[in-house]
């Protein structure tokens, strides 16, 4: 599965990258929101994992960009810090599919991602 990961913290990005690569996924890595929006328009990922607070464009703007793009439906998992419940609600209103609150376990992320693997790939 091709997963686009948008996260501005290098450490978190590397951790997510290593975990998901271990699971056999292909990754498109973005360190800011604007880069993520550009890459979503250029490529066609199967899943998007995005942080909310990022430079240039937020995770919410990424969700809007995904919905604007149309075409195949791309699920979005939002990474949020504790106490950002209002933003998470906003993300769901915009069309996010799931969210994980920091601090999170990389293994939990891996399991959540598995839920979005299309049956054709998982079998």
């Amino acid at each position, binding site marked *: 599965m091709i997963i686009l990961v948008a996260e501005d*913290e*290098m*450490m*978190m*990005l*590397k*951790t997510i*990258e*290593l*975990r998901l690569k*271990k699971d056999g996924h292909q990754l498109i890595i973005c360190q800011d929101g604007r880069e993520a929006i550009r890459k979503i328009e250029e490529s066609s990922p199967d899943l998007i994992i995005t942080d909310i607070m990022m430079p240039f464009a937020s995770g919410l703007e990424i969700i809007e960009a995904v919905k604007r793009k149309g075409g195949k439906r791309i699920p979005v998992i939002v990474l949020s810090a504790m106490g950002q419940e209002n933003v998470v609600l906003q993300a769901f209103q915009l069309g996010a599919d799931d969210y994980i609150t*920091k*601090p*999170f*376990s*990389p*293994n*939990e992320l891996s399991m959540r991602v598995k839920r979005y693997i299309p049956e054709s790939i998982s079998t």
Partner: protein
Amino acid sequence: MIPWQNTIKMHGSFIHFFLQVNFHDLISVIYGFLVLLVLLIAFIIVYTFYKRKVAYKKKLWRENIAIMISQVIFNEDDGTAPLQISFDDVKLLHKSRFRQYVIDEVIPAKKNLSGSATENLKKLFNTLELDKDSFKKLRNKKWHIKAKGIQELAIMEQVKYVKEIFKLTNNKNESVRNEAQCALVSFYGFEGFRFLNVTTHPISQWQQISLLNNLHDVQPSNLQVIEKWMQSPNESIIIFSLKLATLYSWYYAYDQVIRCLQNPDRQIKLNALAYLTKMPREDTPDEVIAQYSFGDKKIKLAILAILQEVGTEKHLPFLLKQLHNMDDTIKAAAAKTLSYLHPLGIAFLHTHLFADEYPWNAIFLQIEKDRAA
């Protein structure tokens, strides 16, 4: 002399000066300026190059550190095997600046991750002896470095330094003691509040919230110590202990809380009332009514709100009297409580003698609307 005549005279002397400068001197001055300019440009170029080099090195270090840490996180999911650190340039690990970069990456990772990953991060912190770097900061004279060191040790759960951190819980610098107090609570939960026995400085509202946020005990065992803190000469400790008693529903502190109601401090009274709202007894309405006349408007409103919860028909005369208070907000609060306690319920408002008179008619109408909503 007129000012403009003065200006002309000055300009004249400047022109005279320049006419006296010979060509050779002028060339020397221009040459000197050019040399200075070249030196300045050279300095700017070298400095920019140096800054870029540093920024590039920083970026490279950060990437290497991120790779190293992310590999450590997945080292062994069971967390029992010894940690294997793969890093190309071991010499770098002896540089204090590089070590600080590692700390600056490990700390947010520890905050953002959970599960076995955090155990591996702690192992990494100890294996690289980064705890010693953080501990060194505790000895620094600058308060912000000291505070940062405490924060790092607290996040990385370095309980072995508790003795030194405890000493800083009553430090004269607010940031240092706040960090030390939070560290203690994050280490031991409720047990960590033992610094309340010794601290002489006030604990700010913000710090009280931070301390409660760091609290992770579900039900601590020695809650009776709260009653001792309620007798502290430090008023902020009394306020905080009242909050703790309310949070843990500590029933046994009731008598001490009633004594706190008589304290002249407004915040102490309000927090005591908050406790009594949550943990009332049969005598609570009489106890709070006894304090009613000593309180300001906010306290009076809090007492009327408690009566709404625990008052009985016995307290109707007191409430009816409050309907004639000069303050309309108090009138409204008393009317609302009456609408709950009176045998006629909300219909009582229509039977009142002043039901058609202003401001009672407006107040009663509002209460009816509020209750209907």
